[in-house]
């Protein structure tokens, strides 16, 4: 589909170093953090400005070529997998923080800016950008906007959509529109709101206006140890019901704990069934008493030990372990698939039990490290992609877990998106009429279905057969 003529035209816009077309270089782009399926683009382009993105999309419109946007490739649902989209537009070179406005608590950034850079830049002003996905040292703001990303600290403060005031969106025909703005309540439909979380199917977001918040005056970070996941889950339900809203409320089960401990030597109790990380933040005055109440709830739910981070160093170390938990999993298996379901928090004990049963039925090892406070579970299914039969069991078990989430009143995804991974499951929660409205809205932005095609909606499956696993790594 990509002709020499098109490559030349792309090089004319972007320069020689802005176009990647060599097979070995392209293989880097064959998947994101969801590694069960792989597909290599025919060409990757690396624009440096909104104008360059617009010029590229105008050219692709003229040529009728589909494309897929990509940030830093840390997504976990195959959202930037090129399926029937030969051109990949990588935003990694659009990585400037354009404006920091402490008085109004705003930051204007290009979409290739890494999440953690925003808080780093805002820190001298006593501010930070709240959404903090575990991949925040690597993931881009553009990717966060596409997926409406969460993170541990979104329990109290909300997810990406609650922190984005505006975006610059290049439509699939190359037109540039600015949605939302620096001020609140911009007149008209909230196109910004529906663009956030549209998984890169409306166009390419090149800039975002972010809200910043004052850094909390104080933190109280507790680690509660339980004999079992059931005990931890009951404590989570108790904390949510207590009325105290922790900044973060995270659970790690034994499998994950042990891997993390072996990797980072934090001092987690290796024999524990589960630990909860409970972080309170806010004004200093009320923190001590709130921490006392959290302690009581944990103890009444069978916590065997409760530790409190003594200083910022200990707190940072604890969060590093939590956020790098995925990195520690290499110790357990060559590959893992991180699922992303949601249940009402009161149903956590049930879903944990069912996940254990599913692991047994499919003969798979499944660990759990997740945002317990909002019921957003992350079962991690371990496998070896060289074992094709085991890999197929992982796909089947993952789907069964999500079915259980839906049966308990939950959802298919809390923060990773539908991507390619969950396309086939959408009918579990949405009727054809529900999806038809969504597809109609999509058609307004992308009438030719050229922007990140074959994602989110099961009708996409009719165009490209999504098999799992699509393509295996070399045996």
């Amino acid at each position, binding site marked *: 589909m990509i002709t020499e003529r098109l490559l030349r035209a792309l090089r004319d816009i972007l320069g020689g170093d802005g176009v990647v077309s060599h097979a070995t270089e392209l293989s880097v782009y064959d998947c994101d953090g969801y590694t069960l399926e792989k597909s290599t683009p025919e060409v990757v382009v690396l624009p440096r400005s909104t104008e360059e993105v617009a010029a590229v999309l105008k050219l692709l419109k003229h040529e009728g070529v589909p494309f897929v946007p990509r940030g830093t490739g840390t997504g976990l649902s195959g959202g930037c997998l090129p399926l029937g989209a030969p051109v990949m537009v990588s935003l990694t070179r659009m990585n400037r923080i354009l404006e920091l*406005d402490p*008085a*109004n608590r*705003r930051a204007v950034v290009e979409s290739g800016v890494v999440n953690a850079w925003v808080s780093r830049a805002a820190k001298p002003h*006593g501010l930070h950008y709240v959404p903090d996905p575990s991949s925040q040292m690597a993931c881009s703001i553009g990717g966060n906007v596409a997926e*409406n990303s*969460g993170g541990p600290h979104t329990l109290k403060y909300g997810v990406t959509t*609650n922190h984005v005031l505006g975006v610059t969106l290049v439509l699939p025909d190359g037109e540039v*529109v*600015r*949605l939302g703005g620096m*001020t*609140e*309540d*911009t*007149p*008209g*439909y*909230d*196109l910004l*709101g*529906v663009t*956030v*979380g549209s998984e890169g199917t409306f166009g390419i977001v090149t800039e975002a206006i972010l809200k910043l918040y*004052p850094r909390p*005056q104080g933190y109280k970070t507790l680690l509660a140890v339980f004999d079992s996941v059931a005990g931890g889950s009951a404590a989570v*339900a108790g904390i*949510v019901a207590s*009325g*105290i*809203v922790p900044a973060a409320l995270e659970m790690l089960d034994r499998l994950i704990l042990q891997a993390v401990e072996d990797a980072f030597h934090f001092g987690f109790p290796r024999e524990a069934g589960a630990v909860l990380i409970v972080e309170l933040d*806010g*004004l200093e*005055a*009320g923190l001590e*008493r*709130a921490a006392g109440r959290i302690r009581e709830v944990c103890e009444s739910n069978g916590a065997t030990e409760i530790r409190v981070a003594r200083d910022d160093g200990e707190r940072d170390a604890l969060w590093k372990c939590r956020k790098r938990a995925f990195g520690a999993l290499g110790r357990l298996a060559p590959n893992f698939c991180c699922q992303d379901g949601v*249940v*009402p*928090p*009161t149903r956590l004990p049930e879903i944990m039990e069912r996940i254990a049963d599913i692991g047994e039925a499919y003969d798979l090892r499944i660990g759990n490290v997740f945002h317990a406070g909002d*019921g957003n579970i992350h079962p991690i299914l371990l496998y070896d992609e060289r074992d094709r039969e085991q890999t197929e069991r992982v796909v089947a078990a993952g789907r069964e877990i999500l079915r259980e989430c839906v049966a308990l*009143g939950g*959802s298919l995804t*809390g923060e*990773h*998106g*539908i991507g390619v991974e969950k396309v086939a499951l*959408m009918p579990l*929660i*949405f*009727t054809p*009429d*529900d999806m*038809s*409205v*969504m597809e109609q*809205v999509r*058609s*307004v932005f992308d009438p030719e279905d050229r922007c990140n095609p074959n994602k989110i909606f099961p009708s996409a499956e009719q165009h490209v057969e999504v098999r799992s696993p699509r393509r295996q790594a070399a045996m």
Partner: protein
Amino acid sequence: MNHETVTEPAPDWAGLDNDLLNTADAPRMGTDADLARFAVDGVRPERVVFPGSVPQVQRVMESASARGVAVVPAGFGAHLGLGAPPGRPFLALSLVSLNALVDHQPANMTLTAEAGACLTRLQAVVVGAGQWLPVEPPFPDRTSVGGLISADLSGPSRFSQGTVRDLLIGVTVVRADGSVAKSGGRVVKNVAGYDLGKLYCGALGTLGVIVEATFKLRTLPEARAVVRVTCGDMAGAEGLLGRIRTAPLEPSFIELVARLPAAGSGYAVVVGFAGAEEDVADQAATLSSLVGGDDRLEELSEQEGGAVVAELRDTPALGEPVLGLKVSVLPARVAAFMTALEDEGARNGSTMAVQAHAGNGIIRVRVSPPDDRDLRGWTSAAVDRMRAAATGLGGTLVVERASPDVKPVLDLWGGPPEGLELMKSIKRTLDPKGVLSSGRFIGGI
């Protein structure tokens, strides 16, 4: 014989009546009193219908679509003054009979209710579990769930709690053609499918008839305090707002209240705190240390504080024949806009009541003209000048309220916003026949 061009077929009201009434499950039709109650800017609907179930709403929409009848969805009718009047005869579809509280899950902090449920009633239920839906629409006793969303109503606490868009996690609508479509769900964290709830927020019912919605709830604070600081002039208030912004405070709201021309009373900064008792007491003390020498600080009793918040929430009073404007600027530019307002007031001789959600940069202005000589021309020119001041500061101005005789000459929304073509295209795609609230929204949508 008259030969004027007919652009759309005449609505078939008799056909509609037949569709709705000659059926076993007929929706309740409104009386003459209802026709008056659901008038939009003085224009009465041809019919008012009160469906009591989702299938009844579907039937109304199917029939209206087929019969060429325009529909204005409504709740209690209290907020119909927002937006332009519909350009043609219409049917008012009130959801107040579809008002069940569907599902309150206290332990999961969620609430699902039908669109006609009254906000005051819902708050009374969830307060029993120590919770609230953290929105403060004006006149909550006459605000429905659907109206809250469609009119995107907010109050002082939006500073700490966000607006409806931040709280709505699932929504079901009946589309113009009568089909039912939902998005989101009943869990607080969910990114499956597009977040269409955002589109319905503030859309004045132009995209679908909301029939059910699910919200996140918040825990009621253990303690509250309201502190009022009266400053002699805007400079004093601006200094105080700046100090509040950088102090270690987490206010639940920061309001700036003024009457222009500023006689004796001057400017008042009203700050709310909510949370743990220690935090609230600490913050009130911190605030008192920020107050300038000429400022007067009053810590209000719980009762006074509640009354002040209700007053802030409920202005302007419903039915008051004033010009109501909503201006949005960057928070740090609120003072600059206030200065522009002072100049405008001095120039045009009006009196103005101003209330700003200062932390959000949202300023509401109620303008009472000096007299009623050429009210249309006067109002139109005043709005243009104030809008110029707002846009000059990078902001926007929307006319939220105006008397029906003046409204037709006003530009309610300001120039076309970015993305207007996308907005129009969304409207055309979701409501191809233009049945729903047509002409009421921005750009003639």
